[in-house]
Structure formats: structure tokens, C-alpha cells
């Protein structure tokens, strides 16, 4: 009574069934590079939407409106400030969102009152946000500083833990690819870049590396256990390790993605839960991309970095020679049907 994935896991573990992640690396790199080019090109053509936090401006949200129409909002804003551009959106069932150019704090208060009157709600139901133009720049600078610090530190920690800088390098390259692709897809979908989206993207840092460390740990274990006596080449050892952890990779990405997907769908419908929506979209993309890149980019890249080492090359040659001899011998090993 084994579930299909369990049987699949058994076959992957024994090597009865095996995906050639390491061998097909040229293909995967090509796909990754194509993807990066596409997700950079789309925003360049279509432009990038920044949220109000980055543009600067004023935003008002009115909750619990009996009759959500856009006209009263425009009239209300113009009654206070005559010459500003007004963008109005209806959010959910009973919410109205109004965005204007940057207003003076005093004008903001006036507009809040006018909007409350226009929609017949108490002023306490009006949420107002006023954001200066430099705020977004400040937060972005902090985020970039954090990102660089994290990448350097984690590269160091991984190099110490795995006792080889090549694993560190492979993981970091995959990580940078993840960031570009995640951000690129996010922008291509047409979502605004907001502080919440930035949180999501920064979390991807941690998820992507986390996932890579789990798989690399298995690779380290396999290649160390194989040693000189192994009947496998280094690349094959790496590949087997990736295959043996594949079920875990699939399970983990599903389990991590499920709650995030829940936030995405709930957050999309609720007023003002933009924070949730933006974080969850960035995360959902990042989890899928991060899991993919570990298996298809980081592991093959690590193998490629190590294969040229003289010791590993000598061992690989020996294995292939023995294999060729065995293939010519008259005593074949018991056959196992290849899948």
C-alpha cells in the first residue's frame, strides 16, 4: 500500500529510477539564462510599477462604505485640492482607495474629512498615508545593505560548514539567479514593488539558501562516503544525492508553498491586505524558483566546479575504465529493467 510518491522515492533512492540533473547541466543553464533574459526584458519594455511608498504621495482608504463608487472620492479630493491627479480604486466589497499627489499634512487631514463626509462614514474609518519621496530610497538602501551583508556572511558560514568554498560559490550563484528571476517574474506579473514585496524577496534569500544547504548536506555525505573505493564518478555521486533528496525537495516546496498560496488568495480579496498579497506572491514565486534552482543549477554547478580537480578526475577515469572492462567481461551482473 505504498503511495505513488513513496514508490517513486524508493526508486530514486536505489537509483532504479534516476534523473540526470548533473549530466544535463548545459540544458539547465541555458533555460536559466533564457529565463533571466526574459524576466529582465519584460519590465524594461513594460516599465516597473513602484508602490506609493517609493513614488511619494498620499493615499486614503475608506472602509465599510455602503455604496462604493468612485465619483464621490474624486469630487471630495478636488473640493480640497483642485489641481491634483486622483486615482480611485474599489477594493473588495466595501472599500475605496484613493491615491493623489503628495499633499501637505494639513491638506491630508482636510481630504480625510471630506472623504468621510462623501461616503458617510466616521473619520475614524478613513486611513490616510502620506509618504515623502525619500522614504522608499531609505528603505531600499537598507535592504540592499542587508542583502550584501547576508550573502557575504552566509558564503563564509557555508564555506566553513562544508569545508569547501566551491559549494559556497555554487549556492551563492544559484541564490543570485533566484533573486533576479523572482523579482523579474514578480514585476512581469504587474504587481507594484512595495516594501512588503521587498520583505518577500529578502525572505527568498533565506529560503533559497536553506533549500540548497539541505541538498548539499546529502551531497557532502554521499561524496565523502564514496571516497576512493567508489564505483561511481564524482558527478554520478552528486547526481544520486540530488535524486535521493528529490522527494524531500518536492514535499518541502509543496508544504512551504501551500500556506503562502493561502495568503495570496485571501490577501487578494481583503481591503488593505496588500502587505500580505505582495509578500505572498514574491514568496510563492521564490519558493518554486528556489527549489528548482537547487536541483537544476546549484548541484550541477558544484559538480562542474569540482570535476576538474586532479584527484577527482583521476578517480573518475579509473571508474570509467573499470566499467568498460566490466562491460566486456563474460559475467554480467543481474539485470534490472531500466525505467
Amino acid at each position, binding site marked *: 500500500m505504498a503511495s505513488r510518491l513513496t514508490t517513486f522515492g524508493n526508486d530514486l533512492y*536505489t*537509483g532504479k529510477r534516476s534523473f540526470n540533473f548533473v549530466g544535463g547541466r548545459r540544458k539547465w543553464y541555458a533555460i536559466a539564462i533564457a529565463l533571466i533574459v526574459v524576466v529582465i526584458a519584460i519590465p524594461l519594455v513594460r516599465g516597473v510599477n513602484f508602490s506609493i511608498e517609493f513614488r511619494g504621495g498620499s493615499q486614503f482608504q475608506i472602509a465599510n462604505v455602503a455604496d462604493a463608487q468612485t465619483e464621490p472620492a474624486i469630487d471630495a479630493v478636488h473640493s480640497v485640492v483642485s489641481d491634483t491627479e486622483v486615482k480611485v480604486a474599489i477594493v473588495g466589497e466595501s472599500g475605496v482607495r484613493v491615491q493623489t499627489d503628495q499633499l501637505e*499634512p494639513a491638506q491630508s487631514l482636510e481630504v480625510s474629512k471630506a472623504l468621510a463626509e462623501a461616503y458617510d462614514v466616521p473619520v475614524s474609518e478613513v486611513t490616510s498615508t502620506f509618504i515623502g519621496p525619500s522614504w522608499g530610497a531609505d528603505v531600499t538602501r537598507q535592504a540592499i545593505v542587508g542583502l550584501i551583508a547576508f550573502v557575504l556572511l552566509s558564503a563564509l558560514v557555508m564555506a566553513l560548514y562544508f569545508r569547501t568554498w566551491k559549494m559556497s560559490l555554487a549556492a551563492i550563484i544559484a541564490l543570485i539567479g533566484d533573486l533576479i528571476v523572482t523579482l523579474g517574474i514578480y514585476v512581469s506579473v504587474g504587481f507594484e514593488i512595495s516594501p512588503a514585496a521587498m520583505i518577500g524577496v529578502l525572505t527568498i534569500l533565506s529560503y533559497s539558501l536553506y533549500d540548497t*544547504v539541505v541538498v548539499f548536506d546529502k551531497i557532502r555525505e554521499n561524496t565523502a562516503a564514496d571516497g576512493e573505493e567508489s564505483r561511481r564518478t564524482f558527478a554520478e555521486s552528486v547526481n*544520486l544525492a540530488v535524486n535521493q533528496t528529490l522527494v524531500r525537495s518536492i514535499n518541502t516546496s509543496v508544504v*512551504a508553498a501551500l*500556506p*503562502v498560496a*493561502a495568503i495570496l488568495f485571501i490577501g487578494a480579496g481583503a481591503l488593505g*491586505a496588500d502587505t500580505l498579497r505582495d509578500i505572498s506572491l514574491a514568496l510563492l514565486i521564490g519558493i518554486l524558483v528556489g527549489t528548482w534552482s537547487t536541483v537544476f543549477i546549484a548541484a550541477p554547478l558544484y559538480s562542474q566546479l569540482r570535476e576538474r580537480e586532479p584527484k577527482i578526475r583521476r578517480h573518475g577515469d579509473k571508474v570509467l575504465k573499470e566499467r568498460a572492462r566490466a562491460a566486456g567481461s563474460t559475467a554480467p551482473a543481474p539485470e534490472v529493467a531500466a525505467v
Partner: protein
Amino acid sequence: MAAPSKRSSRPTPVRKAWRSLSWLGVIIVGLFAINAAGVIWGDASWTPKLALDLEGGTEIVLAPQLEDGQTASQEQLDQAVSIIRQRVDASGVAEPEINTEGGNVVVRIPGELDDETRQRIQSSAKLELRPVLLASGVTSDAAISTEAPEEELSSTPTVQPTDGSDPNWVTPALQQQFDTFDCSTLADADANVAPAAEPLVTCDATGSIKYLLGPVEVSGENIVDATNGMVQTSTGGNTGQWSVNIVFDETGTKAFTQVSTRLFGLKDQAPRDQFAFVLDGAVLSAPSMNAVISDGRPQITGNFDQASSKALADQLKFGALPISFTVESSNTISPTLGSSQLQAGLIAGIIGLILVVIYTIFQYRALASVTIASLIIAGIITYLMLTILSWREGYRLSLAGIAGVIVAIGFTADSFIVYFERVRDELRDGRPLVGAVEAGWKRALRTVLASKGVNLLAAVVLFILAVGSVKGFAYTLGLTTIIDVVIVILFTHPMLQLLAQTRFFSSGHSWSGLDPNALGAVYRGRAEFRKPTAVPAKKAAGSAKEAQKRQTIAERKAAAVGAGTDEGKES
């Protein structure tokens, strides 16, 4: 090693398991007790405090206004924070949060904010001391010339002024600005600002006197202290007069000595013997100089009573922000919106949890119960930690924090997945369940610790370097990572150790999620497995390219034991 039957002497894994579980119990009870004590004797509660985006309230970010290339020192920011705090406290707002974040001052006020308090917070309140050049009482029917001037008036002094009281400051253009200035426009932004080295046209706070003031001579930050008190006679008796007593620091003392000398010399040329304290561009008080004051301790007297002298002293003392601030962002969230965001976050979290539970049941059968129980325990500890932290450390749960917790569900579940998969790998290698659990755990723990270390590193870096909502997110992410490791060590693994003793699991029931049969291990009749052989399975495992001539692990094991009858061919 056959499946252990019930024996009186408990095997060590079981004893270890119970020890771990006891520790976990101690931790949970301890946290619960700490919080209970806080509720009974302190001001703790059973729910974490909420941040503004969930509770409703106003957040104002004040950015220092500086010349290009200058930065505000931490000392200046801290000073500004304490001054703004005094202002907010004076208006009786409950639980204001005022602190510095990334070079800005952030003020968070829960609940509704009245306009007066908002003004008080936002007033950049820079105190300047300027000499008076011209002053006039403003009458309600002030004749303001509406005719446009015939020609462009010169705005540069014909003669370079020699000092702050030099009438040469008053250019025709300035004179006209002074003549046409309307005190009712005082509250407008930019109506009464001028660079420190330039004259300023303004009014007093009540709008009854118009002033034309010279350049700044002493800055408000040179005031160390300002108090109010009764004026004493030389014999120590009371005159019944209230005064405001100022104490300058060294810089202020020097400057004030010069100014007082000059202004005292202008005694017969009122109003040029007056000296104006300008707060936020409005004149607080403009006393005339009655003596040369060289000790840096001037005393202002006039028709004060106790209240008005106290008010002026406070304004002089607290009004002196070291730097000017502008409102960089102001964000008011209605309580309704806050609670709807909280609801959305909680619903999303619960739905996410249910989905995870369904998936793990599908994948791990009975083992899913361990996962679910672990998640529940992790949830309880996280909740208790958040309430304790919000009581002791002023932590507030924000929307970003909720997102952090929801994301953590995935990370937490992953540590179980890594562990279970490792145990399954050991079972595939033909180990009996008890041994598989121990061996799988050794390897899984290493992986879990390494990967959680990366997570914690990310959380710490983000927390230290980030601002605002990113901080809240990083905080919960780091907290849940630590709790996650604790749970896996003290709950998930011990539970599995105990379950390994039960018939249901050790007999490899098909619904146990650890059915060796399903996992392709060699099976020899009921609940009996082959002893693990000395040959490490790793050496035996094959790879893709050898598929044709490679044996399955099961076959190798069978060969090693030499029991030719039950060669476990996989189908």
C-alpha cells in the same frame, strides 16, 4: 535486532525520549508561568500587543532636515526623541512609541490622534534667539497697502550690516514684507522661515505683535535648562513676581554676553533692545535687556503668573530640538482596517495549516500525527513567546510578523520532512525501525541544524540592518526558527522514538507511513527484518549509468545473507 517486545527494563531510546519530553514540558509550563505571573502581578496579558497596522493608529516618520552631506548624530536624534516624548506625554496619549529608526525619528500613537497632538509632534520646534529690529502692534484693521509697488524694491542692503542689531538689515524689500505681513498666515508652512543668517519677519504666538528680527545670535540647543520661580529680593523675600530663569552652556554664555552687552547699549532705542525667543518661527517672548549678563544665567521677568512662566520655561527647555525635522511620512490606519487585516492574516494562516495537514497525511499517513502535534506545540510556544516578548520587550505583532509566522509553517514542517525521509532511507537500507530512527536522526539533525543556521543568519542580518516592517518580519522569522529546532529535538524525535516501540509502527503497518515493504526493504515474514549487514548500503547503491548491471540494494542484501530463497526482486 527483532522488533522489541514489551520488557520491564526500558531501552535507552525510550528513556531518552521521556527525558526530552519532560524538558519540553518544563519549558512550556515555565513560559506559561512567566506569562501568568506577568498577568497577575504585572501588566502582561494573554494576547500579544498588536502593531499599528493591526490595531489602528498613526505612525509619523520625521526626517531631519539637513544641508546636503550632513547627517544627524545619534545624540541629536536621541535628544529629539526625548523632547518629542515629553510633548506627547504632556498631551496624555496612552502608550506612545517614539524611537529612532535608520536616521529618522518614528512616532507611533495607537488609537485616534487629535489634531492638536499631531501639531505638537510635527512642529519641528527649533528655538532661535534673534535680536529685534522692528516691532509693531497689529491692529485688527491694519492698513495693508494692496497697491503693487511702483518698482522692484532692492533686497540687498546698501550698507553691509555690522551686527545683528544694525538697522541696515532692513532693506526696502524687507520693510515692505514687514508692512504687508499678515499675522493670521503665521500657521502656514513657509510663511515664517528664514535662514539663520538672514532676518525674519514674524509675529508672536498670539498674533498681536509683528516683528522684524535680525539673524540668529544664539541657538536654542545652547540652553541647558529653563525653570520658573519667584523673583527673590536681595534680602531673600518674595516679590510676588514670577520669572523664567535660563541657564546657557559655555557657547551660549559667550554669545549671550556679547548680545546682552550690545542690546543693553541700545536701551534708549526700543524695540532694538529686545531679544526674541523664536520657536518654530513664532516669537515666544521678546524681553528687553536690562543688564549685561555675562554669567549665562539670564532671568526673564514680565507680567507672568505661575502658569505662563511655567509654560514658557517648558517651551524653552523642551522646544529646543537640536535639528529641524520634516514629516517624511504619516500613516493613519483606521481600527476597522486593522482588525480586517488581522482577520485576513489569521484566516490565511489557518487555511494554510489545514492544507499542510492534509498534504502530510497524504504523504506520511500516521506519521502525519507527529507532524500535526509538533506544529501545534510549536504554535503554542510561539504564541507564549510573542506575548511574553510584547510584555517585556515591547514587541508588537504586525502584519509582516504574521506573514513571518505563516511562512515559518513551511520551514518548520520541512525539518520533519527531512527527518522522516532520512528514517525512510535507513529503512530502505534494511534497518529495523528502532535503529532506523536513531541512525536517521543523527544525520537529519546535522542537516536541520546547518540549514536552520542559515535561516537564523538571515533573520539576524535583516533584523539588525532593516527598518520598519522588515524588522518585525525578521524578528518572528528568527524566533520561529529557534522554536522549530527546539521542537524537533525535544518533541518530534522523542515521539518517533516512542512510536517506534509500538506494534502499529514497528510491525510496519501499511498505514504507519514507515512500512518497510512499501519502502522496498527486505521483508522476511511478520515483523521480522533482516539484520543490517556490515556492508554499507551506500557502497552498494548504484547510479543511473550503471542501471543495466547494478543490483538493487535488496538484492545485494539478499546475496550477502545468502538466503537464496527470498531474493527480493522489486516489481
